[in-house]
């Protein structure tokens, strides 16, 4: 009798133990992020840990891919009907994602508080056709970084305010033998080169599309490519730039092998205070320069947002997670590699301390952010432009012809 009682108790305990986790009705979210620029993988994991600690019934699986794989991975997972609940997306994709029903419309979920608190420029990252397809998360643009020590040795007092000045200063540095090729860019056949090109297009007052048709082959669009080709051919630009992505630029710059570099926010604290940086404490940052008579500064909208996929079975939980990740509290706590989307954060000493130069550059740069074209065919247009730009750099075509064939291949 006693024995069977014991047995029954044991079974009861076992059943309780097995069924206990079900009491929580645990939900698992699959989220896709990138391992490149902006928040580091460690940052994203820490932010997520804080979320799961506050919401023990939700589990979040994180996956990190290089930026180059982010778009295709999202679309492929969608095509196979399974996959992610939350995805990181670039400012250039909402048009395509909305048209192809990859992301759900979250306009109704955005509160007035969010609408008021988040910088107006940040919303352009997630909006298409009057609807919001997510929350902005990474607010980013390309800045001009410079090596203070090298500029000082060259006798240069202030960093360049125009692209013309950048060339002149680079020439001084080259002529004085301080560096053979002073400027580093990310001009690999990838989206990175389009970001640098767009920065220049915005400086020269160019336009990508006019009435939906390519317009980059003339005016500012052409001037921008001419500037790149000249800078490359004159030897002021590091010739390896044409196989560099952002991380290669960072490597070259923080090894002290570049006087100037165009890169995203994240490079500032990594190069200026990173343990592996040889230029720590010598990093200067200003908005990307302008063009006399056309612009004061230039900037590309390189922001990214977090959205819910249309195949997600847990849209409520996914939104909860996104709200946590994009909240002012979370963003202020991790403001070293990516700056917050919230306007009032830029006045918060906790955010600005130790990176005043970056904040000063951001105030000007973020206000001048220029968008890459909004079209569902963006990937095709970008691929065609990448090829055209490289052809012009490699002297396989004149800038005029290169942009002309890019327009023909753009599918627009």
């Amino acid at each position, binding site marked *: 009798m006693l024995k069977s009682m014991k047995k029954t108790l044991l079974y009861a305990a076992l059943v309780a133990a097995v069924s206990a986790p079900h009491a929580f009705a645990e939900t698992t979210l699959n989220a896709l992020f990138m391992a490149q620029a902006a928040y580091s993988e460690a940052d994203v994991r820490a932010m997520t840990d804080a979320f799961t600690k506050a919401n023990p019934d939700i589990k979040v699986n994180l996956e990190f891919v290089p930026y*180059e794989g982010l*778009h*295709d991975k999202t*679309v*492929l997972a*969608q*095509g196979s009907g399974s996959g992610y609940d939350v995805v990181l997306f670039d400012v250039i994709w909402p048009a*395509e994602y909305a048209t*192809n*029903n*990859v992301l759900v419309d979250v306009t109704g979920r955005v509160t007035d508080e969010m609408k008021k608190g988040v910088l107006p420029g940040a919303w352009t990252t997630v909006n298409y056709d009057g609807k919001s397809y997510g929350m902005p998360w990474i607010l980013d643009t390309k800045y001009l970084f410079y090596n203070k020590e090298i500029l000082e040795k060259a006798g240069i007092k202030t960093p360049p305010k125009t692209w013309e000045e950048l060339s002149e200063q680079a020439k001084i540095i080259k002529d004085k033998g301080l560096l053979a090729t002073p400027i580093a860019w990310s001009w*690999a*056949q*990838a989206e990175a080169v389009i970001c640098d090109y767009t920065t220049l297009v915005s400086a020269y007052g160019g336009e990508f599309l006019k009435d939906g048709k390519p317009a980059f082959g003339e005016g500012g669009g052409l001037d921008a490519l001419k500037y790149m080709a000249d800078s490359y051919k004159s030897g002021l630009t590091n*010739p*390896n730039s*044409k*196989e560099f992505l952002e991380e*290669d630029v960072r*490597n*070259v710059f923080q*090894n002290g*092998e570049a006087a100037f570099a165009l890169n995203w926010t994240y490079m500032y604290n990594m190069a200026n205070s990173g343990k592996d940086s040889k230029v720590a404490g010598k990093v200067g940052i200003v908005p990307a320069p302008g063009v006399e008579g056309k612009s004061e500064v230039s900037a590309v909208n390189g922001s990214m947002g977090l959205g819910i996929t249309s195949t997600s079975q847990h849209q409520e939980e996914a939104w909860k997670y996104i709200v946590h990740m994009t909240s002012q509290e979370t963003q202020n706590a991790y403001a070293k590699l990516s700056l917050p989307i919230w306007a009032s954060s830029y006045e918060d000493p906790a955010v600005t301390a130790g990176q005043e130069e970056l904040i000063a550059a951001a105030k000007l740069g973020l206000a001048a952010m220029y968008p890459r074209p909004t079209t569902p*065919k963006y*990937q*095709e247009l970008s*691929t065609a432009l*990448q*090829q055209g730009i*490289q*052809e012009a750099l*490699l002297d*396989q075509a004149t800038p005029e012809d290169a942009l002309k064939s890019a327009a023909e*291949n753009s*599918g627009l």
Partner: protein
Amino acid sequence: MASATRTVLPPTSDEEDVMSSTWMTTRAWLLMLPLLIIMTAVIGWPMIDTVRLSFTDAKLVGTGGAFVGFDNYVKMLSSNNFQRALFATTWFAVISVTAEMVIGVLAALLLNQQFYGRAVLRALLILPWALPTVVNATLWRLIYNPEYGALNSALTQIGLLDSYRSWLGEPGTAMTALIVADCWKNFPLVALIALAALQAVPRDITAASLVDGAGPFARFRFVILPYLAGPLMVALVLRTIEAFKVFDIIWVMTRGGPANSTRTLSILVYQEAFSFQRAGSGASLALVVTLIVTVLAVGYGMLVRRTAGSAA
């Protein structure tokens, strides 16, 4: 030779008595049935669906797409992108496979010699081939790195190069650099197949040719090569088909750049179908690639039969 192979496994009279030929055929089909079902499910059906897709303007997600006839094929085959990619692919396949065959056979001949440490070398041979392609590609990217790559460092130190240069960023060198990386990975397969074949060469024949005064070249050409021909044809077929479908090593190392000089057909298919989300024209392009590979495979198959016939 021919009679020798035939007598290796003579059918025993018992078997012939017990099993009629109809039962043998039925049994063979029954045994193959599970495999056939799986193959139809995972290869046959997607293949048929791809053919259907190729005649539509379907997108990757969403709509099924409308019938557009041969539009996709006409557009694709007449496009400059396709022709450039076809040329790049052919160039890659011809050069890399030729190099792999030559280096593979030479390595096999070397490893067939008696020398101290041969076993270690034979074991090491398999290493590059056993590495995942993505790892191999990443390693070679580091070697070719324009800022701190080992190749630049080695060439400048021995004085062949004045200063570091970009290998993967110049159209002139990018494809060659890729071919070298691909060869390094794949020549061991050829070497292994050749080495196995070399060990089947009877000692008495090589000894006899030595006695008859045949030089090293004559011995290779008339005594050893006939034994190698069949297995090497198999290696050639495998390698050519693989090389024609090349994707991963290029995607990791250059993503088709600079200025699309290394964009092969498979990369074009990937971009069309997945980056641009045009499942329809992506499918048509993929089928064209499949067709080319099939023609190559059939052609080689005929060659293999002929070499096997003449070697016997």
